[in-house]
């Protein structure tokens, strides 16, 4: 019997920042994401514990997403728990550009 066994391993990196994602903190996150994106093109950024995101933080999300998509992958976001932070993602239409999920499990499923 001739038989081909094939195994595919999908690596999904999951990042959960816990503090303010503002213009001061953004460069550190950018660096961490770039390191991860050197090893995988599928990334979940779990924003659930992030209390504040400004446009510099949002820019880091977009640039990671662009890089991941170029490499055939994607960046998915887990919604912030903070209601005001969620509203800003609606306002800027980020929720239409990113695949959004309510939990990390939901984000990784069928990635």
């Amino acid at each position, binding site marked *: 019997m001739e038989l081909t066994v094939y195994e595919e391993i999908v690596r999904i990196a999951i990042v959960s920042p816990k503090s303010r994602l503002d213009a001061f903190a953004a460069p550190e996150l950018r660096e961490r994401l770039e390191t991860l994106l050197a090893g995988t093109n599928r990334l979940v950024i779990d924003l659930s514990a992030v209390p504040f995101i400004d446009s510099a933080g949002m820019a880091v999300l977009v640039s990671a997403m662009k890089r991941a998509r170029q490499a055939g992958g994607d960046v998915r976001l887990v919604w912030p728990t903070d209601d005001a932070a969620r509203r800003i993602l609606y*306002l800027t239409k980020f929720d239409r550009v990113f695949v959004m999920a309510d939990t990390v499990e939901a984000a990784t499923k069928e990635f």
Partner: protein
Amino acid sequence: MSECDTLHLDMPASLRYLNVVSASIAAFLERCGTPVDHTTIYNTQLAVQEACTNIVRHAYAENAAGRISVCLTLLRMPPRLRVELSDTGRPFDPCAVELPDLDEVQIGGYGLFLIQSLMDEVSYDFQPGCNRLCMVKRLTSDE
């Protein structure tokens, strides 16, 4: 409480300490005598943070030793917070900038859009050596 409850904050034009501006706004509003909901506080913090970031990155692009002055004033009837930012960097009128196309996601370029969307009044005044950005936020619910 007087009509002119005013707080001044003067700080290095560095991204590092912008969290102090946010913290001061929240603490000031917590004690302003009117209940202010979380979203209103958040939106005010965000707009002011965006304006400060622009001062650091653009107005002081060639001046690492610049300073930002933040003036918080409570206005009455109806209750409003006025935030006045002053800097001595490059003059620039934020009201003249085109807003981003939200259907084309972009890296950056959301700062002025957020300021204009989240604050109720935005005005700009340039005097030689001093740029002044004035933003007013009504302290009623943003829900």
